[in-house]
Structures are given as structure tokens and as C-alpha cells.
């Protein structure tokens, strides 16, 4: 084992994938200069591990700022023998290529009756929580969950980020990975040797009996903090990180809810049609009998992301908001001040559409 940051783990997975298979290429804006820290060894070209030095300009390619053709060309290349990893930098830029994602990447294998193979990974980083304002703070994975044909990966730890990315590159289906920048610096233990984590296998982060929290991306550390604080009051909380949203490990969540009878879903995406909405519906359909209280979602309210730190911070699932939600599902008196979590949930449902 070695200790690595989340970002370092992504870089390590990319390096291993490039070394393992000459058909793997990396394309994206500013990837040659290692601007986002996943395509190099350090700040200088002479630093050990510089991708351009290691793999050459045929396999690591700076692109123009043309997301539509970046995504479409990666798809076309995947259909004809390459295994591209596309670095789209900010997740908000995916919208520029919506047609290619929805009409080509997701549909080509299906429409052409299985003739097309689509081994391509689209990586993007969600900069929410870092005062980047409305144009750079998106968490768009639920939109893509609504597109059959795509696989959606949302790692929350260095270990998962590395192992899931290796699996994504191996996959003959298109995979979108959404990386939370707020987790970039998180350190964790990562095996020295190569390993892969199957898509569709949730991780039980913490065992507990009184309530289940399904937490996504940066909500995972927030849920752990909530579970730890409630443990002091003798409340035992199970935390599940699905790690991938498509495919989704339904069984793991259902099994847990059958035991705890209570569910909180913490999801940094906007509330309406969020991943949390889908997970809640699924549990309501498949484990209704086990539920001893209504499901509670802790999401980002349906408002745009404001710039001012004093406005932005309150919006995402936090330790206190998740704590509050857990207290609600287990029927305990809540302790939040009036501008706290309960108000946020109400805000979420009342936000103008």
C-alpha cells in the first residue's frame, strides 16, 4: 500500500492504462502541459513521469476548445480501434457536446445492432464548492443517467478513483466519470500493484443498524462525519457509497434498508430528477415494506450556484444536513437552527421552476 491523493490516483490509473495498452490515448484541452494534474509527473517536462515524454505526441494530444468534435471524434476513434480517455476538464463543458453524447456515444452500439463497440472514457471534474460560480459548478451526472447506453462513475476515494478508472478504460462501453474537485486532495491508501474495481458494486463504508445513508461523491465524507457524530449519541448509521450510478448496485442498498428500515440519500446534484430521486424511487418500489419512515433526500436545492462563499456553501449536502436528515428518519427531535437543514429541504421543494 502507498498513500495517494485522489488526483494522484487518477493520474496513476491513466499512466498504468497508457503503459498497458498502446491503443489507449489521452485527448483533451491542455493535457500536454498537465494543467489538471493527471497527465504528468510534476510541473516540469523534465520531471519523471511526464506523459508527453513517456508516451509521445501521437498518444497524448492537446485539442482545440471544441467539445463537440472532441467527444464525437473520441467516439469515432473508439469505434475503429482506439481506447480514448477524454479529459473534458470541467463537467459544465459536457453540455457543449450533448448531441455527441446522447445521439452518437450512447446510441451507436444499439442503433447499429451491436456492430459498434464504444470503448471510451470521458473524465470530467466537478468544481462545486470552490467558489467558481454558476458556469463551473455543475454536477450533471443525473442528466446522463437518463441516457441509456452510458455508464456513470462517481468515485469518492483515491482507492476507488484509481480502480474504477482502470475498469472504465477496459470497458467496451462508454463510461463517464465525474470527479469531485473538492476531493482532489483527499489522501488514502492505494495498492502499489494494479487492481480494478467492478462497475456496479457498492462499497459499504461503515456498518450500522439504525439508518442507511446512501451517499454520492463528496457526500460520502459528509455522511461519514454525520455517522460519527451520531455514534456519540448511540445512533448507529450505515453508509453506502454506490461508486457507480450506472450500473447501480440495487441489491446492496435494498439489503441495507431491509435491515435498518430507514433511508437517507445524500447527493450533491440538484434535487429534481437527481440520483437521489432515482434511488429513493427504487427503494420505495422494492423495499416499501421494510421502510419504517419516509425516505429523506439531502440534495442541492433547485437553484443555480451563486458565487459568494456565504451563499454557496450551505447548498450542498454537509455533515450537519445529513445528521439532521438521519435524526428525522429515526424520529428524533432535531437540533438544527431554523435556517438549517430542514429549511434547506423546504427551500429545495419550493424553489421556482
Amino acid at each position, binding site marked *: 500500500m502507498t498513500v495517494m491523493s485522489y488526483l494522484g490516483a487518477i493520474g496513476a490509473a491513466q499512466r498504468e492504462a497508457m503503459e498497458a495498452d498502446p491503443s489507449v490515448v489521452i485527448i483533451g484541452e491542455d493535457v500536454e502541459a498537465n494543467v489538471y494534474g493527471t497527465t504528468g509527473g510534476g510541473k516540469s517536462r523534465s520531471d519523471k513521469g511526464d506523459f508527453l515524454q513517456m508516451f509521445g505526441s501521437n498518444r497524448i494530444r492537446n485539442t482545440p476548445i471544441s467539445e463537440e468534435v472532441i467527444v464525437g*471524434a473520441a467516439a469515432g476513434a473508439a469505434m*475503429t480501434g*482506439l481506447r480514448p480517455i477524454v479529459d473534458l476538464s470541467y463537467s459544465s463543458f459536457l453540455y457543449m457536446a450533448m*448531441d455527441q453524447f446522447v445521439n*452518437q456515444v450512447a446510441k451507436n*452500439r*444499439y*442503433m447499429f445492432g451491436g*456492430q459498434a463497440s464504444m470503448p471510451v472514457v470521458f473524465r470530467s471534474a466537478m468544481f462545486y464548492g470552490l467558489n467558481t460560480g454558476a458556469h463551473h459548478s455543475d454536477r450533471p451526472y443525473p442528466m446522463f443517467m437518463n441516457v441509456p447506453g452510458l455508464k456513470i462513475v462517481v468515485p469518492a476515494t483515491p482507492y476507488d478513483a484509481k480502480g474504477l478508472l482502470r475498469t472504465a478504460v477496459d470497458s467496451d462501453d462508454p463510461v463517464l466519470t465525474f470527479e469531485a474537485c473538492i476531493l482532489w486532495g483527499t489522501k488514502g491508501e492505494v495498492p502499489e500493484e494494479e487492481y480494478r474495481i467492478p462497475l456496479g458494486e457498492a462499497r459499504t463504508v461503515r456498518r450500522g443498524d439504525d439508518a442507511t445513508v446512501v451517499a454520492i461523491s463528496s457526500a460520502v465524507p459528509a455522511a461519514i462525519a454525520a455517522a460519527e457524530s451520531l455514534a456519540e449519541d448511540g445512533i448507529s448509521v450505515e453508509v453506502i457509497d454506490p461508486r457507480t450510478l450506472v*450500473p447501480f448496485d440495487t441489491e446492496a442498498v435494498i439489503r441495507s434498508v431491509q435491515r435498518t428500515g430507514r433511508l437517507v440519500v445524500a447527493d450533491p446534484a440538484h434535487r429534481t430528477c437527481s440520483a437521489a430521486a432515482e434511488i429513493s424511487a427504487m427503494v420505495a418500489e422494492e423495499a416499501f415494506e421494510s421502510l419504517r419512515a419516509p425516505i429523506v433526500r439531502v440534495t442541492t436545492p433547485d437553484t443555480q450556484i451563486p458565487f459568494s462563499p456565504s451563499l454557496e456553501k450551505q447548498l450542498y449536502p454537509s455533515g450537519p444536513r445529513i445528521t439532521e436528515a438521519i435524526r428525522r428518519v429515526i424520529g428524533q427531535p432535531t437540533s438544527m437552527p431554523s435556517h438549517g437543514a430542514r429549511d434547506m429541504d423546504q427551500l429545495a421543494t419550493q424553489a421556482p421552476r
Partner: protein
Amino acid sequence: MNLSPQTQLEMQRRMLRIRRFDERASKMVKRGQIPGTVHTSIGQEAQVVGACMALGEGDYMTGNHRSHGHPIGKGSPLGPLMAELVGKATGVCGGKGGSLHLADFSVGSLGESGIVGSSIPIATGAALSSKVLDNGHVSLAFFGDGAANQGCLYEAMNLAGVWKLPIVFLCENNQYALSTPAHTVTSGVIADRAAGFGMPGVRVEDGQDVLAVYDAVHTAVRRARRGEGPSLVEVITYRYNEHSEGLKLGTDYRDQAERAQWVERDPIVVFRQRLVDDGVATAEQLDALEAEVIEEVDEAVQFTNDSPFPDPSVAFKDLYTEPIGALA
């Protein structure tokens, strides 16, 4: 350019295959034997075949909604194409594509696209893989004059130019996008736009002449194969039928005299005359060729009629390599 008699006869054969296939498909739409509608390439056969025959066997191609001519021009067997139009299990896409989304990977046809312009980046990516893998394949993107105003074309031309990708951007300028005359929505000349990307742009003024199209595209393909990068070829042509079969527009957006002029220069008739004049084939040989093609289309329809519809479970196949979620 000196093309062998066999090659010239093959050009005529492929143009005829497109014509007779599309004529049959049109009839089948009107009789309700093909669900939905189709867009025919009738009138544009020289433009399609001249381009396809300039490509080699391993080369790639993408297309658009006017979709049958491209795979036929590249040499696809007709049976699975016709079966696909009807939605049969033996269709080239197993009945999940239909007319708008034909693809025949066995001949390098990477897919037609129902979204105007959307397949251009795919062809560009195929050219990227040829370049990275250094396998010598060239890619060709067919798109209409309407698609020429989509932004993704210019993203693709820029990327292909800067990476010197082996691709030909082929604009089938049939002068209308549905009811809209190209000149009313297109600033300047499409071929001239190539200059802005530092690539050759040529305009084939007579797109009814299969050899002229072949020449222009062949030059572009050779350049691509030499590693010198992309080209834009604009071919002026005309569709004889309505935008799609069965479509009845309220206003007469096309001058019938204009149409008549283009019908007079039917690419198949023009080339037939030329083959006879040049002594490449006799009228009897060409009649026999036509009969063979008609028989081939008959067989394709027979194949289609004899084929079953897909099992309902097929609707859930091929979304992923392995079914996931509720489909697993």
C-alpha cells in the same frame, strides 16, 4: 484519369443498384410496406458512387438521413439493407436502426445519422484512429448543404487540419435542405470555407458526372493517404424526389423547370451513353447489367419478405456489451 472498363462498369452497376433500390423503397413506403419514411438518393447517384469508389475497401465512411446510397455505393449487399428498412431481424442492424441509421461495418460504413451533421465528428475520429494506429485507412464524411451550416463541421475541419487527419469532408450540395434553398441560408461558397482551415477545397460543378466526382474525391483520398491531411469536396447535384417519400409540402418551393433540367442530365443515362460512346460496353451488355440489378433488388425484397421480425426481447439487446440493471 484512365479507369479500367471493369471499374467503369462497376460504377454504373452501383449507381443502378442505388436507383433501383431507392425506387423500390419509395414504392414500399407508399404501400405501407416500409414503416415511416425514407430519403432517396435518386438523382444523386453519381455524387455518391464517384465518392465511394474513390475509397478503398478498408476505408471508413459516415453519412446522413439520405442514407441508402452510401452503404450501397460502398458495396453493401442489398438484402440486409432492405430488411432493415422494413425492420426485420435479418436487417443489417437487426431492425434497430431503420432507414435513418443504416450501418454496415463490414464495408467500413460506420453509420448514417438522423441528426443533421452529427456523424461528421465520428468520421473525424475514425481518421484519428487511422493516424494513431498508422493503418493507412482514410475516412470520408458525407453531409448535405444543410449540414454545412452546423458548427460541428467546422470544429471537425479545424481538428482534422491541425492534426493532419486522413479525411475527406464531402458536401452533397443538392441545393436544398428540405424546402430551404441553400443560397438563402449559406453565406459564400461552401468549398471556399476550406481555405480558412488551410486545406484544399474543390467544387465539382457537375455532380451528375460520376467520373468528375471520382476524380476530385480520388485526389483528396490520395492526399489523405499520403499523410497530407484533410480536404473538402463540394459536389453540386440535385435530388429528383421529394425530401422524403410521401412528403407533401404545401408550397412549391422548387421550380419544376429547374427540376426538369436536372432530370434531363440523369447521371445513369449520361454515364450509360458515355460507356457506349467510349466503347467500354455495348448497349446489350448494359441492358444485361440493368437486368441483373433489378433481379438483385427483387431478391433483396424476397429476402426481406422471407425474414421474420425480431423477437421483442431484442429491444433490450446491444445497449451495453453485457446487459445491466433491470435488463440483466
